[in-house]
């Protein structure tokens, strides 16, 4: 074999050293994507937020949109609804998924089949699931009320009662918790067995073992689940919108007017209000103010999540 000596490479400039330039090339589609679909819209949202804009005329409005934010009763309503989702629906869903995973882990017979049964509903298309739940919980004639009446219980007005509409959607969320359950299942299976044995020798019962062994071990996954679900709750849109429309019996197509959040704005979330303001009423400027509010809140939770990543040493 003949080894030919290559001419010495000319010294490269500093920034070229390492793998920076190559990485830049590989990242370029994503950099373009971030600029066009992340940086640009955020900057122009700030710009539009100082304007009145209905897609035809653009006129400077100063701080009017921001002042209106403080007076808009719908913002308070949707903030309260979101707070309810964060305080009740998220913990309920996370704890239920964890309990379900714990149950599946303990099963000896038929675990695979049951796991599939618990997982499947999470794949049901969101519109289909929501319509089904409105049907199931139809007051008087729905199957759930029928079954309740067999037990002598009179069901509430579910999706028609502002006090029950969010709990009804929470039931939907519990039904669709399969993805979270599988995540918890994997985490539970990763807990080293010998820790349980050691705890058992120390005389710890099942509950004590859960508190002192399971919970600390799966804490990062639990935290991840909580924060992602809170962010998910901040974006809550489709289920609430479909439930409102179907339960109110609105016979309109997507283009026509509809008062969002039925019943009595109990399902009105900030993303829905933003959608109504921007894409139904065409107050693009004010919609951008709402978008920036949503952005600020989401970023706060994202920072919490990132801190969590760093703590579990995964972000490096």
């Amino acid at each position, binding site marked *: 074999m003949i080894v030919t000596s290559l001419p010495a490479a000319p010294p490269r400039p500093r920034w070229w050293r390492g793998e920076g330039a190559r990485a830049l090339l590989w990242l370029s589609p994503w950099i373009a994507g971030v600029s066009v679909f992340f940086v640009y819209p955020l900057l122009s949202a700030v710009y539009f937020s100082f304007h009145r804009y209905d897609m035809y005329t653009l006129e400077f409005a100063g701080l009017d949109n921001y002042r209106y934010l403080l007076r808009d009763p719908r913002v308070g309503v949707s903030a309260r609804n979101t707070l309810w989702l964060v305080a009740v629906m998220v913990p309920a869903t996370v704890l239920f998924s964890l309990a379900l995973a714990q149950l599946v882990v303990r099963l000896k*017979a038929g675990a695979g089949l049951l796991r599939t049964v618990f997982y499947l*509903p999470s794949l049901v298309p969101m519109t289909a699931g929501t319509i089904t739940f409105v049907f199931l919980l139809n007051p008087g004639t729905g*199957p759930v009320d029928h079954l309740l009446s067999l037990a002598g219980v009179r069901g509430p007005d579910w999706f028609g009662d502002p006090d029950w509409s969010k709990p009804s959607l929470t039931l939907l969320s519990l039904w669709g918790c399969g993805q979270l359950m599988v995540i918890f299942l994997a985490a539970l299976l990763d807990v080293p067995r010998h820790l349980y044995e050691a705890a058992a020798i120390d005389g710890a019962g099942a509950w004590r073992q859960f508190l002192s062994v399971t919970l600390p071990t799966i804490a990062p996954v639990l935290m991840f689940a909580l924060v992602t679900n809170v962010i998910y709750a901040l974006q809550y849109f489709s289920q609430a919108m479909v439930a409102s429309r179907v339960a109110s019996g609105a016979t309109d197509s*997507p*283009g026509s007017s509809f008062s969002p959040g039925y019943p009595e704005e109990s399902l009105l979330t900030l993303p829905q209000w933003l959608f109504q303001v921007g894409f139904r009423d065409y107050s693009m400027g004010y919609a951008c103010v709402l978008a*920036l509010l949503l952005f600020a809140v989401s970023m706060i939770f994202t920072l919490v999540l990132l801190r969590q990543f760093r703590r579990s040493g995964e972000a490096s």
Partner: protein
Amino acid sequence: MSGRGRRLLLWVATHAFAVALALMFLAPVAFMALTALMTDEQALTSDLWPRSWNWANFAEVFDRSLLLRWAGNTLLYAALGTLFTVVSSVPVAYALARFRFRGRRAAFLVVIAAMMLPPQVVAVPIYLVWARLGLTDSLWPLILPMLLGDAFSIFLLRQFLVTIPRDYTDAAKVDGCSDLRTLVRVVLPMARPAVAAVALFQFFYCWNDYYGPLLYAGVQQDHLTLSLGLATFKAFHSVQWNLTMAATLLVTAPVIVLFFLAQWVFIEGVTLTGVKG
């Protein structure tokens, strides 16, 4: 009671409880199917069991809606969206996982931030751009952006790629492989489960997406997707729960079939998101 007897009792209790819960999880689909087969009149009563089996309800759904057209639109959105996402996200994830460069930590943080960004935040300015380009009333504003990478997919792939030992890529480099060749010949074959999971997740995301098509698909019936069409179907046939449930079942069925065809990908993919994340 003896220790053995108690253990047996606990075994029975746990399994009975699990089976009861499983039945509750299956009940919505069962009621959906039973109602789908009822007559119009019976579907409005509180009966649980159909008096006659009206299989023709399914045919009627096809007659009364553009279900096949919606399925076609949804399939186009989901298939192209998935293809574009995989093709554009793999190189980015590869770069984030393998190259050492200044600012790669910052780049990764931007990926996470973009992943957490609610789609509604950027909706107005982006919508205005697509409107100016005359592309609203179509699904292209949803499909085309996927050519530029999807944050969640990049995140998932990157988390998987960092677990591949460096020795493999270093060996390829020693053998004179270019970056592209290393990716295609060495990394991708090892990353098949992650790529499959990303593809499947993206497919399902598009297939089930309601918000995106609501914004862009417009109001014409023949532009709708399945999830959007189903919601309007209910609005047009508000008292016909049997037809609505038949339509709901028809929209749900392909998803369930796909799950059974690719079960392992789902379970592994979900695990990937949570535990490594």
